[in-house]
């Protein structure tokens, strides 16, 4: 174990070269996509022309954030086995999406998951409530990504934080504004390929030091840091907290607006299913790689070195790239991490802009009567607006502890978006009041409980003890959202919604009339 002088944080020629090739390439795609991003269906859903394989790659690209790549590899490198618990939690939401909501989403919706919730309910109240759930999920996720990206780029390239944030915001706005869903999809696909290829090569180079025998790697880790690195540690000390986190990760995935929106880019339910299958395989493979990367960094870089560059261990994967492939490979992986951030914020921004224009402007302000031209114009303005908001949020939260925000985004998605979606699809008795009550209850309880939890009350506000004991509120907020949905539907029934259920069933199960 000899420490080496890392060049992370100094401008790296390969990194900058790769980075410019990526930006130029993706902007060229955006330019080609611009001609095909004029109508609403093109702008929001890439004209429903995406193939199963492409959408599978794009779903994986949307989901594999820099936080999961660098964060989980870092967690494994410092904590060993426990990092795997997060990886598994992030993956198991995908089968749930497949079994419960992929087909209904594709068959009942048009551009957003709110279309599905509002299918047989009173449009305005539902759209407003669902938009709040969507926008909060998108915003908290965006803040986490933006702040993370600013810090990451500062560390990797030595650029000032503010410059990094503005650069990310500007490029991301260009993708979405000019290229809509088509460009965003291709950015995700390219990023997913780069990330998977980079991680695969890194694992190959790391394992070549152990005679391509994974057990030899675990062996070396146990010899250096003791057998405990291979055992579950203190991450799930509290069973209820662990269960709560598990619920948030699993059902939160099935309530993320930018993920659910991808189901409208494929022509039919059959393709939607295939794309979930491909995405699950790619994401699963990726998490297996990050697990190995974490252990390889632990052994080849060393925990002291990883901890000295970044306390949270976020540079573990980059340090491993440097140890195994020198500054050239480090440059490549750094550029890939940057591309990863860009792609994820673009996907989030498009989802937010679609909610603002399609759900709020068209279906609430204009009561569903708006020309397509107007709608796309509003969507493009919303893109610029959201992009600027993302930049401002990134600047405002500089240096803040935003680690809890991804957890919050998942908690709201699991408590506000998922229960309402499930109730509206599968329960005939769901009424407008019930669905609104469910969304509002899920949103309010998850936000309030997170604020009172150790992650905010203690870590951010610096109070001595939390008021709410668990780090994640899903175990409370999700059942409450279902209960509120049931209670609201029983107290204020909705005869119209009940009578439309049969027609909805036909479309849901047979795809009759699906767009």
């Amino acid at each position, binding site marked *: 174990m000899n420490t080496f002088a890392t060049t992370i944080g100094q401008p790296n020629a390969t990194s900058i070269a790769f980075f410019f090739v990526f930006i130029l390439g993706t902007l060229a795609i955006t330019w080609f996509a611009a001609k095909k991003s004029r109508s609403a269906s093109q702008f929001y859903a890439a004209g429903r022309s995406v193939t199963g394989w492409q959408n599978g790659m794009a779903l994986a690209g949307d989901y594999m954030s820099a936080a999961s790549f660098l964060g989980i590899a870092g967690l494994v490198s410092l904590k060993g*086995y426990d990092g*795997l*618990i997060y*990886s*598994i*939690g992030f*993956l*198991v939401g*995908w*089968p*749930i999406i*497949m*079994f*419960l909501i992929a*087909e209904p989403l594709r068959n009942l919706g048009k551009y957003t998951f709110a279309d599905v919730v509002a299918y047989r309910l009173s449009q305005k109240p539902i759209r407003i409530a669902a938009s709040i759930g969507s926008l909060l999920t998108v915003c908290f996720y965006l803040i986490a990504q933006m702040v993370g990206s600013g810090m990451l780029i500062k560390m990797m390239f030595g650029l000032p934080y503010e410059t990094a944030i503005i650069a990310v915001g500007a490029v991301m706005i260009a993708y979405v504004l000019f290229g809509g869903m088509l460009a965003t999809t291709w950015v995700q696909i390219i990023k997913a390929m780069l990330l998977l290829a980079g991680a695969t090569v890194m694992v190959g180079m790391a394992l070549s030091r152990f005679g391509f025998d994974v*057990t030899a790697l*675990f*062996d070396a880790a*146990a*010899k250096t840091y003791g*057998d405990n690195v*291979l*055992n*579950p540690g203190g991450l*799930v000390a*509290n*069973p209820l907290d*662990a*269960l709560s986190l*598990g619920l948030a990760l*699993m059902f939160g995935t099935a309530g993320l607006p930018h993920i659910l929106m991808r189901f409208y880019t494929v022509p039919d339910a*059959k393709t939607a*299913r*295939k794309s*979930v*299958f491909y995405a*699950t*395989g790619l994401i*699963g493979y990726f*998490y*297996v790689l990050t*697990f190995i990367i974490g252990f390889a960094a632990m052994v080849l870089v060393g925990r002291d070195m990883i901890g000295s560059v970044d306390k949270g261990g976020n540079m573990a994967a980059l340090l491993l790239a440097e140890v195994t492939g020198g500054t050239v490979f480090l440059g490549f992986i750094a550029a890939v991490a940057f591309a990863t951030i860009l792609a994820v914020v673009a996907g989030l921004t498009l989802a937010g802009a679609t909610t603002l224009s399609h759900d709020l402007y068209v279906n609430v302000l204009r009561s569903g009567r708006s020309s397509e031209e107007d709608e796309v114009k509003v969507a493009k303005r919303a893109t610029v607006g959201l992009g600027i908001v993302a930049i401002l949020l990134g600047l405002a939260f500089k240096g803040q502890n935003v680690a809890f925000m991804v957890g919050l985004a998942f908690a709201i998605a699991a408590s506000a978006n998922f229960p309402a979606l499930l109730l509206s699809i599968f329960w005939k008795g769901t009424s407008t009041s019930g669905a609104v009550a469910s969304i509002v209850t899920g949103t309010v309880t998850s936000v309030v409980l997170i604020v009172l939890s150790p992650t905010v009350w203690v870590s951010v506000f610096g109070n001595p003890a939390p008021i709410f004991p668990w780090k994640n509120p899903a175990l409370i907020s999700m059942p409450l959202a279902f209960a509120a949905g049931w209670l609201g539907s029983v107290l204020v029934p909705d005869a119209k919604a*009940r*009578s439309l259920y*049969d027609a909805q*069933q*036909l479309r849901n*199960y*047979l*795809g*009759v009339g699906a767009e």
Partner: protein
Amino acid sequence: MHTPTADPTRDNRFSALVRKRWSVSLTLTAIMLAIYYGFIAILAFRPDLFAARVGAHMTVGIPVGLGVIIVSWLLTGIYVRWANDDYDTDVESLKHAMRENRE
């Protein structure tokens, strides 16, 4: 609520199709929930089970954890296989029958 008898949702074949889909969906969902929450329960209550050694330096927990990832993916594969072959064929024939009824 009076529904005309021509309503396809009253058709036995349609309700059979819906039932079949639910039994497949819910069975697979139950398997997934059991695997994942079983995994969390072992971590929380009996982490020593995962700390058991297989071979010199390999624990039970590592292959089990990676196994959860692989099994999750295989479950989605089983579902796609069933839905794209079996279920979609039924849907097509039912739609065909509905069109015939209308004519």
